[in-house]
């Protein structure tokens, strides 16, 4: 009566073979866990834009219009040639396709894209700023980016934007005693002029400077990532795991399976923005010609003492609204050469890659994660993945489905009308 063991073994083996064949097929059927993970990456899961309590003008449409004009204005630079839009090109996802950004000089980092940053608690690759408006002020005073001073920028506002500025922020202070070049910058003469100014004048100039940042942030807040081919797929993926046909190719589907599985990408690139908003050491090589870059280990110190952070007098937030800053990790081994997880939305179209453009192609990025090389300093979080050549190609194919035009009023993607 008992089933001969050999028949039982045969049946089990056949069942295993069928199961394996199904798993290896085009990937049209997803498990409940996979469905949940895919849905968590869908743009439809993006929450309504959170308020920015540090910027009371964040959602003011007159501030958006002013910020739009300022973003494209090259008068906000020491040589009259550099605007935000010089490196953040609207037609190129607000970045510049270069390994290192070039303003009046050359920086040590890759230009970051802007869409969706209103959701980010930390700005820059090292998170040294904690709001969009505080971020916007950094390059303006950097000697290699805009290269100017806050006194110069306040005069530009007074001369060219008085009405638009006063409609949003109220009366401009009197700048009669303020020299054209003065600010707490590297340049010794500009710094000396700044220190010679009475405190009240320094305060007035800084107020105008901060409001420039808040207007630019209001503009940037309107730039959001657009829905991609992957999002159409995720939107139509059924709860029972049946995938919609004709949206992703079998290779792209296989790449998605790797992305949420074997390749561990969602460890950091999770949620609808494909970022955990945190900092990781992934063993990215150092650039020999650049000074040592400690990443978050340096950025954490900078944001805590930043003149414009959430707890500063220039922030509109109540101290209890600064939870990210309040509970951030200030130091430690894990911060060494840790850099912010970039969103992967649009990333396939943003070569070169990494914080100093160290990796030229997407295929090489995938190869880097597959090999998991030793970090030049600190410890990499990566482990070798053991991907086959075919799997690496599939992963790349999937990443290329994450590209879409920016979701914004089309007028905001063009230089403003004068």
């Amino acid at each position, binding site marked *: 009566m008992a089933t001969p063991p050999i028949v039982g073994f045969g049946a089990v083996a056949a069942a295993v073979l069928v199961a394996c064949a199904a798993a290896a097929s085009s990937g049209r059927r997803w498990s409940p866990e996979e469905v949940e993970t895919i849905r968590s990456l869908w743009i439809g899961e993006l929450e309504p834009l959170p308020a920015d309590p540090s910027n009371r003008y964040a959602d003011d449409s007159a501030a958006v219009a002013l910020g739009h004009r300022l973003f494209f204005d090259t008068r906000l630079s020491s040589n009259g040639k550099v605007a935000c839009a010089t490196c953040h090109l609207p037609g190129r996802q607000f970045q510049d396709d270069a390994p290192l950004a070039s303003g009046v000089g050359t920086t040590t980092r890759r230009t970051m894209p802007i869409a969706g940053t209103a959701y980010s608690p930390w700005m820059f690759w090292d998170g040294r700023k904690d709001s969009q408006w505080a971020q916007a002020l950094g390059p303006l005073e950097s000697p290699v980016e805009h290269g100017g001073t806050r006194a110069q920028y306040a005069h530009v506002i007074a001369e060219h934007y008085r009405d638009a500025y006063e409609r949003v922020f109220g009366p401009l202070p009197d700048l009669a005693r303020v020299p054209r070049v003065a600010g707490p910058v590297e340049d010794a003469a500009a710094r000396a002029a700044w220190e010679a100014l009475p405190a009240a004048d320094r305060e007035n100039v800084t107020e105008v400077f901060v409001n420039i940042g808040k207007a630019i942030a209001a503009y940037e807040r309107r730039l959001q990532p657009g829905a991609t081919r992957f999002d159409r797929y995720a939107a139509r993926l059924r709860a029972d795991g049946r995938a919609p046909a004709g949206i992703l190719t079998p290779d792209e589907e296989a790449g998605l399976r790797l992305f949420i599985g074997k390749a561990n990408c969602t460890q950091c690139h999770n949620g609808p923005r494909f970022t955990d908003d945190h900092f990781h050491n992934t063993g990215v090589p150092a650039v020999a010609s650049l000074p040592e870059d400690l990443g978050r280990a340096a950025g954490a110190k900078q944001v805590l003492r930043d003149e414009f952070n959430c707890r500063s007098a220039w922030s509109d937030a109540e101290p209890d609204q600064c939870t990210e800053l309040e509970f951030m*990790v200030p130091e430690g081994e*894990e911060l060494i050469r840790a850099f912010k997880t970039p969103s992967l939305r649009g990333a396939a179209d943003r070569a070169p890659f990494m914080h100093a453009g160290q990796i030229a192609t997407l295929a090489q990025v995938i190869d880097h994660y597959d090999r998991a090389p030793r970090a030049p300093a600190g410890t990499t*979080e990566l482990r070798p993945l053991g991907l086959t050549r075919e799997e690496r190609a599939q992963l790349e194919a999937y990443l290329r489905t994450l590209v879409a035009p920016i979701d914004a009023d089309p007028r905001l993607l063009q230089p403003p009308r004068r």
Partner: protein
Amino acid sequence: MEKGFGTTRAMRGGAWALIAIPAVLGLLYLGACAPMMALMHGRVERPAASEFGFGPRQSARGLYVATIEPTETLRVRRMHRLRLTLRAADQAPVEDVSITIDGGMPEHGHGLPTKPRVTGNPGPGVYQIDGLKFNMGGWWELRFRIASAAGTDSVTFNLEL
């Protein structure tokens, strides 16, 4: 002669190796290799399902019993507030206590992305914890080091995000 004898021994050895090497490799693969690979990949044994949850959990030396209660469902990338309730072994609420918090993902070898701490003491033996965040899905440990007149001890919660 000696040379010939030696050759014969080597040949016998070769025959043994034909059987022994695959056997040893097989055993290594089935037994030793898996834990070794796990170690190389920084993997640690995941606790049983019954070890997960908000407690009550006893501290390592048995000095305290701790329960946690998030104010909302724990979700990835959100800043959370917890209530931690501490009782002594005799069920008395634990007062005048110093609590430090750490944790992380044992499978990935990293700590918490934030530095949560006690921000309030809303009732006897009840402590409010703010600034807790999880930046990825999976198994997280959340550890409280507790020091009071009763002694120093720690309690670890296993959470699945």
